[in-house]
């Protein structure tokens, strides 16, 4: 049985923890609104970009000579996995969800005998991945000191991916990030960006438009595809930023509630033991008086 003093101290410390989590929740909520806006604003751009590319792809009649970024190197050996995580913790399952998905993918790739290369973005992801897959990490990025991630940061990573691709360092590239659905739900995603996946190719055959190109298709594609990679990375960044704040907000909300419950329980305990000690003292006095 803890003493009254101990209980008092514990109540105090839980209360101050509660204050911190409450403040973090409010900060996350404020940041979330902005991040969510950004993510929603950024969606049309990447979507339209994908549209244009799929339109272009449909009108290519010579798939043999199409850019490798679009159709792949023809091999299926080395995988480059880009894992996007946050730089800060205390955001619930946000980082571990991405890492779990990524690790499962890594394992199945390795089991199939594929080669694996990892680019880890965000320091929290590095920490989680490096224990098991540390030797596969070829590059780490962290934009901790940046207040807001802009297109420039996405371009740095996009260029790095392009650079590796041109050196034939990998055949396929997969992007791992959290897709922001709403404040409570974030879905970890694995998106293949090289070669471009084109599921819509067969389904939308009827509305094929014959486009006029200026300059030629392949020239446009050659310029557009690298841009598309940066765009997809940027989209992933935005989704991730919104997810991180959403995840942190719910996590901190839960923490605040739990702290409240704990304080209630401890207070009852405290009152009970205080009452017990009073009763005990009374009994002692009474029994002392009786014995006289």
């Amino acid at each position: 049985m803890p003493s009254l003093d101990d209980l008092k101290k514990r109540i105090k410390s839980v209360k101050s923890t509660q204050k911190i989590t409450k403040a973090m929740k409010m900060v996350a909520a404020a940041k979330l609104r902005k991040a969510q806006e950004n993510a929603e604003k950024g969606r049309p751009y990447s979507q339209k970009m994908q549209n244009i590319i799929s339109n272009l792809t449909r009108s290519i009649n010579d798939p043999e000579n199409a850019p490798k970024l679009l159709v792949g190197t023809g091999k299926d050996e080395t995988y480059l996995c880009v894992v996007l995580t946050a730089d800060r913790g205390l955001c619930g399952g946000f980082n571990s969800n991405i890492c779990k998905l990524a690790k499962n993918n890594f394992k199945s790739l390795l089991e199939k005998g594929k080669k694996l290369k990892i680019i880890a973005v965000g320091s929290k992801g590095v920490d989680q991945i490096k224990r098991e897959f540390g030797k596969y990490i070829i590059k780490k990025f962290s934009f901790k000191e940046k207040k807001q991630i802009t297109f420039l940061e996405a371009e740095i990573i996009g260029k790095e991916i392009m650079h590796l691709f041109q050196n034939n360092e990998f055949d396929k590239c997969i992007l791992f990030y959290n897709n922001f659905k709403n404040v409570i739900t974030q879905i970890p995603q694995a998106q293949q960006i090289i070669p471009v996946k084109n599921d819509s190719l067969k389904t939308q055959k009827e509305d094929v438009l014959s486009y006029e190109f200026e300059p030629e298709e392949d020239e446009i594609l050659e310029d557009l595809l690298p841009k598309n990679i940066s765009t997809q990375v940027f989209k992933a960044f935005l989704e991730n930023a919104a997810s991180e704040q959403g995840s942190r907000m719910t996590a901190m909300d839960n923490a605040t509630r739990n702290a409240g419950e704990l304080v209630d329980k401890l207070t009852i305990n405290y009152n009970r033991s205080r009452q017990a000690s009073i009763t005990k003292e009374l009994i002692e006095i009474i029994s002392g008086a009786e014995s006289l």
Partner: protein
Amino acid sequence: MSEQFTVEIISPNEQTLKTEAREVSLPAFEGEVGILKNHIPLITFLRPGLIKIFNETDQIYFVEDGTVEFANNNLLILTSTAKLMSSIDKKSLEDLINEAEDKINDSEISDKERYLLSYKIDTLKNINL
């Protein structure tokens, strides 16, 4: 129906513009392109220049690069650099010109970049505020 079609300018950060227009002229990679309603589907690049959107009130944007798609009477301009003309002041204009001129004097750049930069400088110098 009117002779109008939809114009959208979208940057990675936000949708800059969505409006109706009678005519739009664009600085495409291989020359100026004018687009009216029912133009055939077109995909092209932008080089630095001015996008002019003609309607009741005309709007002019300065762009450096981007991609354009026209299909089903919907003109889509994807660019990260669109600036509304009226929002550019003399000071920032001069800054842009100086920056571009510094770059063009750099001997390291490729012919394509030089071509694009020369257009940028020409366009910027022709802007009268």
